[in-house]
């Protein structure tokens, strides 16, 4: 019998509380286990609790019920108990522009987590920052403030900032929401590279999870799918199972947008 691979994160029987009132449960019974190399797509209508799920996974919000266990790979690539260092931990890119720090330049935004956790000056991380800016196509905007950039570029700042700490689990909250077609294409290509080519920004073991309210762009990229609907968590399985699903909400999220 082959041993079960170690999970990067595991949520068991988690109930997600409402942001404004912790006594109200938005989603209950979430059993989610993420392993190395997986690409999770979590679908659901707007306001169903997808963002709150990611905030719980990232440790920003406590679940109303259930347990959350995280393992972060050590430098040697072995799985160890979660350490206080956020490097190789869980990174979250927020929806709606990624929430970059508007008082800092793009380069300073990307350098901040590296400088803070290593306790060093900007010069010491300049080459890493340049590399991250090159990968995310932000090099021409390095000295600009995020406020003057469009939503797609701001979202990329948040992506570069999240990748700076070489996370083992990259959570992207609705990364394609409100983006132009060219930007959507860039994101899908970039995430495909991250997933398949063992990109240096996301060294193995690592996994990616995204939320969406439109499954179509993700069918070719995702390896595991789940649906949050009517306050319940439902695992949808593989891309083939999603494509053949007769669930009305899944069918609706697979049809062409009007």
């Amino acid at each position, binding site marked *: 019998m082959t041993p079960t691979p170690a999970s990067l994160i595991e949520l068991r029987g988690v109930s997600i509380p409402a942001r404004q009132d912790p006594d109200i449960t938005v989603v209950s019974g979430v059993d989610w286990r993420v392993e190395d190399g997986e690409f999770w797509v979590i679908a659901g209508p707007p306001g169903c609790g997808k963002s709150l799920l990611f*905030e719980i996974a*990232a440790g920003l919000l406590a679940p109303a019920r259930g347990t959350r266990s995280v393992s972060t790979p050590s430098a040697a690539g072995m799985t160890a108990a979660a350490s206080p260092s956020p490097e190789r931990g869980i990174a979250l890119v927020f929806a709606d522009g990624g*929430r970059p*720090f508007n008082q800092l330049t793009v380069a300073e935004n990307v350098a901040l987590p590296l*400088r803070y956790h290593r*306790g060093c000056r900007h010069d010491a991380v300049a080459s890493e920052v340049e590399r991250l800016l090159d990968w995310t196509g932000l090099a021409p905007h390095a000295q600009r403030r995020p406020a003057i950039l469009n939503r797609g570029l701001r979202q990329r700042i948040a992506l570069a900032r999240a990748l700076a700490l070489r996370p083992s689990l990259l959570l992207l909250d609705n990364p394609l929401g409100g983006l132009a077609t060219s930007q959507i294409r860039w994101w899908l290509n970039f995430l495909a590279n991250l997933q398949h080519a063992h990109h240096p920004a996301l060294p193995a073991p690592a996994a990616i999870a995204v939320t969406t309210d439109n499954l179509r762009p993700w069918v070719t990229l995702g390896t595991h799918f789940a649906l949050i609907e009517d306050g319940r968590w439902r695992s949808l399985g593989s891309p083939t199972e999603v494509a053949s699903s007769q669930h009305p909400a899944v069918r609706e999220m697979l049809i062409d947008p009007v």
Partner: protein
Amino acid sequence: MPAVPPLSRNKGLPWQAMLQSPLPRSYTDFVGQWMLRWIDASHKMLAFALITLGVLATKFKTASAVVHPLIFEQIARAGLGMLPMIGFLAAALGFVVIGQTVAILTKVGAQDLIGTVMVTVFVRELGPLIAAMVVLLRVGTATVIELGMTRALGEVEALEALGIDPIHYLVVPRVLGMAIGVLTLSSYLILGAVFSGYLFAFLQDVPLTPGEYFRQLALALTWQDFALLALKTMAFGGILAVVTCFHGLAQPLLLAEVSSATTRALVTSLIACVALDALFIVVYLLM
């Protein structure tokens, strides 16, 4: 709702009957709710202050390459940046208060009291309080707005997602900046007012030599004045920083609520500083 008993001569004096009569329910409700809110807010603010102190003590050397430049930036903002304004206020107050006081005391032959009056008015009271108010208006207001925007735009959660402690990164530099800022500005304000005050007295031909003027000031000052001045001004700065950071950062905020949070922070800071000043008056009276 209990009926208000009629005022009757048989029950003694009318004011006694008024005191015995129950207050209208709505009024007591209003006062009760206000007091409960005040106690709740004070409790939260105290907890926030203790957390900040804890972070300051335990993480002072953490990420020093990132946080220490922010501390210097805040000191420059709350101290150095306020110097022109403090210089103007020192000159104006010196002319208005000290110049007139010196002139009047000399006229009535009470020159010996000049040192005591100057130390009481400026070193103990006006200097620290005016410096604190200037920092509150120029830096405290901006702090609530900046942190309120940071909170409303979700940047606090973004910091947490990167493993950065928002108290360490956003609050600690402001607390140290404002505490040191109010201390230094108070010192400059006092020195400036003392010099400009004498200049005004000199222009009025007051028969008081500079040597006598400064000798009296030196005699009136004790080492406790310097210690209490440092303690009071740093406490003022700390209070301003904690209250403004609390209102901007410590509770969920919408963009539309930033303006009301700013007003609340200004009023609370003002009341807290005056209350602390009253406490220090007790200390001075016991000296």
